[in-house]
């Protein structure tokens, strides 16, 4: 009896030692991969930061109005944000590779899923960023043009443009990641359709008189009411 127990304990001990002997090199490999990843991520961040400084991305971002949004969200400059993102994406990639080297069965599948999602997430972030910049630029251009031309409700026009572009960008980004693809598409169609329908009803029924006056003023009597500024030059 005693010998059986000792034998079992020996077996367990030798198994444990064997497991450790098998696991330790993998752990070391993982640590090496993580450390190499850290170095690679640092180098890539430095290179990207230098390239973005040369291309004056911060100035472009400032001009396009994206920097204002970043400041409002207490985020760093565009160059810094992209450099840091690259750092974390690179390092996370190496960490995931390192973890997969450990050979833990349950983790393998989850990691490979995450790897498959990474490019889609990156593209979705890019879509959101481009959407944000475009919405800001076009809505501001519309606001300035409407104000300078003396149109009524320029802010409404500007916000409508901003909203439509945002909605489009968000739905495109979500579709890219694959989050409830059908639901997002349906939600976008419903929201956009409802907005247009609402505007059509509001303008067509609620503001029939206003619409008639507006059309008459802008089409029929356009020449009569044209405003002439004094010759500037």
């Amino acid at each position, binding site marked *: 009896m005693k010998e059986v127990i000792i034998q079992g304990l020996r077996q367990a001990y030798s198994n444990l030692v064997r497991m450790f002997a098998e696991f330790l090199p993998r752990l070391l490999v993982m640590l090496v991969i993580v450390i190499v990843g850290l170095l690679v991520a640092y180098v890539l961040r430095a290179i990207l930061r230098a390239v973005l400084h040369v291309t004056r991305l911060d*100035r472009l971002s*400032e*001009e*396009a*109005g994206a920097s*204002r949004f970043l400041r409002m969200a207490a985020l760093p400059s565009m160059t810094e944000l992209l450099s840091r993102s690259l750092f974390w994406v690179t390092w996370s990639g190496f960490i995931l590779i390192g973890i997969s080297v450990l050979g833990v069965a349950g983790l393998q599948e989850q990691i490979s899923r995450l790897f498959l999602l990474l490019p889609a997430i990156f593209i979705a972030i890019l879509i959101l960023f481009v959407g944000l910049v475009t919405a800001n*630029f076009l809505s*501001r*251009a519309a*606001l*300035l*043009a409407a*104000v*300078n*031309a*003396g149109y009524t409700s*320029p*802010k409404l026009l500007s916000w409508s443009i901003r909203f439509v572009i945002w909605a489009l960008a968000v739905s495109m980004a979500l579709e890219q990641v694959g989050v409830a693809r059908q639901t997002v598409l349906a939600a976008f169609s419903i929201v956009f359709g409802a907005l247009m329908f609402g505007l059509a009803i509001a303008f067509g029924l609620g503001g029939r008189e206003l619409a008639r006056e507006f059309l008459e003023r802008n089409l029929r009597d356009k020449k009569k009411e044209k*405003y*002439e*500024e*004094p*010759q*500037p*030059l």
Partner: protein
Amino acid sequence: MAEESFLADDFLRQLMSVGEVDLLVGIPTYNNAATLGQTLQSVEESLRQNFVRERAVILNVDGGSADETRQLFVQSGGRRDAGPRGLTSLRTTHRISCEYGKAPSQGLALLNIVAAADLLRAKACAVISPTTTNLTPSWVVNLLRPVYSERLDFVAPLYARSRFQGLLARDLLYPMSRAIFGQRVREIYCEEWGFSGRLASQCLEKEVWREEAVRARPEAWMAVTAIGGGLKCGQSFLGPKIAPPTGTDIVEIIRQTVGNFFWCMETNQATWLRGSNSQPVPTFGPDHELSLDGVPPSQEKIFELFRSGVSELEPILASILAQDTHAEIKAIALSDRSKFHFPAELWVKTVYEFAASYHHAVLNRYHLVQALVPLYRGQLYSFLLEHANASAEAMETQSEALCQEFERQKPYLVERWKVKR
């Protein structure tokens, strides 16, 4: 040479057949068949009567006219009428025509003119607009003579104006250009001007011809290049200018002129950041001529546009202007329309803050310049209200006071310009 890469072979052949010249008159055209004949006649008459011994060429640079502008230019040969003193030119006046593109561009037209001037070693050049319907031979000689005989490098025109004409030039462009670049040249945004061969060669060497600011208003850039290069500038009185209305889209005009001026400030900052007071320039004829005719424009609408602009563009103006300047503008926008006054000090501060914000690119630059339009309308309304019945002298006194205010506040601009963001 830079010009070898862009001048068409046919144009080069024509230039080579002319050889060297003393005078060059450039006429940029685009569908100007209706008025070109009169312009050509005046130019030829002026050359015949005033430059008897000089070798001259008239150069037409066309932006792809769909009418018969180019054929008209080539076919209408010069007559050799005697001048008032019985003098006739001893030399042939050459005519060259080229098409620089299929769409009009002031910048490309000037590029071809300066390249031709450089190749032909012209001593004095003038650019003449074919849209001016009252062009007389005296205009051409008034632009060429100061360059050819007085050795000036840039000669701006001086036009006789009615009191409600040229208000952007009077309230912003002239006072600001005078304060910034230190030369009292009234009309750097013009359609007729004179320049030397030396200035043409210097301009040709600059690699800015593709810049939109230069493409739209090359004459102002040329004037600034002359001032920045330490060349001699002057101005010459031409008289009243009559031209078909080119439209008064104030947004487009401000984008072209003020945007261009801010760009010139940025590209020439080394020359103006250290300078202080302005200097008068040689002036041929009266310094200015202001007539009291002209109907005042609709003022009510101007004020409405100012007030709504200040309110609707609040976040944009907040990112461009200093906090106290923005607060002052918001306060005057709420004041009673009949007692409205845009103080000169506030106007100058506003313009300088726009210039500094343009330099720091706090906003897209097209948008930034457009945001100035409502504020210009406020200043315009204030001017019209205060000068409804003013005499020409009173208006000139006010204009001079505004110029001095721009000069007085220049250190403020320099300070904001140099601030690191």
